[in-house]
């Protein structure tokens, strides 16, 4: 959990993924489309990946990846991100966290 929090606070937009996960690819694409450059952490290539995945599940992220953090705060999984994007909140959160400028 500490590692998750630690990594999540290092950049305005942070996404935890797995290299084989295609939904993660979709969410990454969305962020790039919005002009953000999120930090990507692949759990399957991290030595403490299992613990991190467990921690993410503990936060209520289901499936565990993709797990999105903006401004150090847990935003949610793919479903949450898409919902927030549709109602305009995602963009605002990114602006507030200074991940994007407009």
């Amino acid at each position, binding site marked *: 959990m500490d590692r998750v929090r630690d990594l999540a606070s290092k950049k305005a937009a942070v996404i935890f993924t797995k290299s*084989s*996960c*295609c*939904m993660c*690819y*979709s*969410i990454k*694409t*969305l962020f790039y*489309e*919005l002009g953000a450059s999120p930090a990507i952490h692949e759990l399957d290539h991290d030595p403490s990946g299992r613990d991190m995945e467990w921690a993410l599940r503990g936060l209520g992220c289901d*499936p565990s990846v993709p797990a999105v953090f903006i401004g150090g705060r847990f935003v949610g999984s*793919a*479903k949450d991100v*898409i*919902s927030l*994007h*549709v*109602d*305009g909140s995602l963009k605002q959160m990114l602006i507030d966290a200074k991940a994007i400028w407009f």
Partner: protein
Amino acid sequence: MRRKQQKECGALIPNFKLPTHYAVFNSAKASGQAVSPDCNHIGTLDKTPTSFAINRSATQVESRLPLEKVQQTNLVSISSGYTENWGESNMADASPKTDISTDADTDEKSQRSDRGKLNAVVASDSSDRSKGSLDQKTLRRLAQNREAARKSRLRKKAYVQQLESSRLKLTQLEQELQRARQQGIFISSAGDQSHAMGGNGAMAFDVEYARWLEEQNRLINELRTGVNSHAGDAELRIIVDSVLVHYDEIFRLKSNAAKADVFHLLSGMWKTPAERCFLWLGGFRSSELLKLLVSQLEPLTEQQLVGISNLQQSSQQAEDALSQGMEALQQSLSETLSTGSLGSSGSSGNVANYMGQMAMAMGKLGTLEGFIRQADNLRQQTLQQMHRILTTRQSARALLAIHDYFSRLRALSSLWLARPRE
């Protein structure tokens, strides 16, 4: 490998009949060579001399592992260096030598016998003289055994092929029956109707969808009456809310159906042909819908225009992101199925590879459900957001417009299907 896994793997090997509306992967992109859904293809393969091909199809539902061993037990001496091939693309050319020449002096090439040579094995008495270690009687007996085994495999293969085509016919009939039922034609069924429906996820969903459409028509008519009679906002809001709640219902039904049969949803076979034209991840494209609506919703305030425009852009972006994820999935699946089809080392390594590949491919297919779910989530959120931006009356008109649009597409489908043909 456990029996169940074997069965599943067996179901995934080349002879497995994929549903015909398996549109997502039914493209040149997929390594179509390796997986042939057509039984007839196996028929052409059968023309290769080897019992390898026959053995495969005959044992498709059973264990995949000891294939090679089965060959070995049937045959006496194995030619020294035959190629292990799992991919059907290899079938046409050099097939593994399962026809045994007892002549140890013959080189590998002549051991690639065709059917004609199989008969020659029986008459291999002449070559026997040069060998001398096995007597004539034994040779003849072995040849007869081989012949009998081969005939048995052919019979089994023919039987399995028959079963396959019967199964396909049965599925087609079931679908026809269900369609006819939907149209209200009374057809008495042998078993309990609800049981028959429940057993099949695709059919069950089709029925549920038909019911949903009926209810949708009813609600929309109510809404239309309300709008035309200039009903008050409060009254309209109730009906509008009920329509939106009803939309939630179809998304819930689709979510359940995705668990049961994701490919049915992806195929769009539950929709009419013209609707299928515009299919995106098992449903409509929200961004397109909004484009259609904007002109019909005027006059809109400045704020509303901005809101709708942003909504259009957001849904478009989300659609693009999901589409790209799907493409990545397709590519990944192709790669999984196409790597390492030719093994260099021993047989067990290749079988393990094959199983591993299939297991990975299975995992990837499992993620399709997630994509459909997110696509539906996007549709649902877009409708909700649209409702938030618009006034009650505008929402009512928007919902009417959406319904009318899809109704026309459905009517178009009916006309198309009924069109006179030469």
